[in-house]
């Protein structure tokens, strides 16, 4: 018990939680924007891969780190656009399109990577983002050391939470996105474009998802590996429901999951001899389900989620 307390009170634990949470923050925000507009984006897992590959590859080809981030976002946006075209004006199954995008994005990334680097034995590395020392903030007690260990991308993720919250809560665009996800007719009747809003939301959301992937290869690690996304995208799909489609709760959910994961590693290390290590690996997922059962009792679905809308039809 003492050990647990020590872990929970240690700065490095919270630093690790935030680090683990960062790609999830990007991903869950991205999924949140898509779903708020009424479209489920199961392409997320593949878009993570694309972001990871493109961001890394760009830097490896000689661009700066932010250039890589930009390319990753654009690549994510591109796959988002494909999903948007299929699901919004064409109104095709969001499930199939999404899973198809995941398969497509993943295989394109892998195929491109392998075709570009046919004979690597050890994946080439780049110089990743370094921890960012922000003067005043890093002097804060406890919080300082937690934040001080984070890279620019984690700061970007936190900034995005604020930005997405602000847009949804305080701007006309945000109101329109929320409205189109609840009742597209309300938006159409006010002269706004349902298609435009939804396509825009999916493209922007997918760009954010890709940043989650880029974090993995440009900050959490410095090379691209097959399979390294390892289900993180799917976790975001779960977290967005846990978060009831709210950015603040999304941050909380991602941090909670990150903390479960960071705790899992530490407990497995210490107690692995007593119980099978897998018990700990399962813990973040089980705890997430429990959290959902307790918290999201009245998950408040965007009412138009999964329902395509065609102009001039009812």
């Amino acid at each position, binding site marked *: 018990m003492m050990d647990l307390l020590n872990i929970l009170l240690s700065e490095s634990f919270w630093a690790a939680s935030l680090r683990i949470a960062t790609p999830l923050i990007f991903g869950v925000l991205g999924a949140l924007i898509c779903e708020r507009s009424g479209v489920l984006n199961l392409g997320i897992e593949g878009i993570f891969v694309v972001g990871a590959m493109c961001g890394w590859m760009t830097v490896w080809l000689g661009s700066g780190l932010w250039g890589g981030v930009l390319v990753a976002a654009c690549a994510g946006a591109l796959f988002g656009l494909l999903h948007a075209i299929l699901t919004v004006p064409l109104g095709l199954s969001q499930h199939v399109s999404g899973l198809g995008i995941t398969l497509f994005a993943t295989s394109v990334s892998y195929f491109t990577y392998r075709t570009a680097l046919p004979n690597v034995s050890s994946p080439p590395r780049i110089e990743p983002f370094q921890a960012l020392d922000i003067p005043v903030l890093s002097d804060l007690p406890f919080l300082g050391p937690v934040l001080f260990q984070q890279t620019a991308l984690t700061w970007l993720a936190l900034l995005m939470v604020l930005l997405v919250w602000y847009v949804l809560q305080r701007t006309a665009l945000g109101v329109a996105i929320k409205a189109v996800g609840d009742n597209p007719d309300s938006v159409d009747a006010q002269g706004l474009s349902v298609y435009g809003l939804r396509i825009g939301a999916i493209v922007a959301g997918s760009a954010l998802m890709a940043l989650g992937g880029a974090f993995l290869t440009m900050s959490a690690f410095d090379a691209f590996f*097959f399979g390294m996304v390892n289900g993180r995208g799917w976790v975001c799909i779960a977290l967005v429901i846990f978060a009831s489609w709210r950015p603040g709760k999304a941050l909380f959910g991602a941090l909670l999951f990150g903390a479960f994961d960071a705790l899992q590693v530490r407990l497995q*290390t210490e107690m692995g001899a007593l119980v099978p290590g897998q018990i700990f690996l399962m813990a973040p997922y089980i705890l997430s389900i429990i959290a959902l059962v307790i918290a999201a009792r009245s998950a408040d679905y965007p009412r138009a989620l999964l329902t395509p809308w065609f102009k001039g039809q009812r």
Partner: protein
Amino acid sequence: ADAIKVAAIYTLPVEQQWISRIHKALNTAAERGDIEYVFSENVANTDYERVMREYAEQGMQLIVGEVFGLERAARKVASDYPETAFLMGSSFGPVGPNFAVFDNWIHEPSYLSGMIAGAATESNLIGMVGGYAIPEVNRLMHAFMDGAREVNPDVKFLVNFIDSWYDPPKAKESAFAMMDAGADVMYAERFGVSDAAVERGVPAIGNVIDTSGDYPGTILASAIWHMEATIDKAVENVAAGNFEAIDYGQFSFMAFGGGSLVMDESLIAPETVAAVKAKEADILGGLFRVNVNDQRPVSDN
């Protein structure tokens, strides 16, 4: 003689450390002109048998791969194609006439690298992050731990498996957690661990591949696997028409050049280097046998 047609089938991408060693040896043989080499990577377990048959049908003379988890099916395929030579990574034995096996038997250099780690730790706590607790991994970890205990009876280990071959960020987090808990030497079974070690300025021990170039000043030593000895031997036998279903495992032993220890002597105490070299000589001379233990290793406490 004509180049031998060789196909390899891997269940993971060729960057995976274990596979990368086979891939490298085959590429080297291909560059020498001994073989024509093709491969399929990331072949799902379900598809493995079909791919084996496809290659056999294509007239491949030697098929290399790994059949952990498909032992039976692979042997069935081999018996259907008696003209084709199969050389497969396997935990089990060979079967006549054409199914030979190998494995990464580099527990010897692992033991030696353990001695270096045991001498290097001041906190007497060594962190080990693994992918899956399979015999191929467990055995090297145990050899490493035995080596460390030999030079430092007080040493303790933290062990963690991430249940993934390919999640460097996760491996990195595990390593951070161990260093938070006091580990001051890391055993880098997976990509990501050495990176964490570099960030914390903690030394690390490499495994299977030599990454000292990537992490100068961090990697004290690595136990390296060389598949060349195995592959060259098999290719030679196929070319000579006398490929046999034997266990090629021994070609991974140090004595055959299949395993070796590289160390960065600038980072290691001279007396440790001397002790390691003496032990190495004992191993090569047959005076010392490293114990083989395939059980899942667990943290001490």
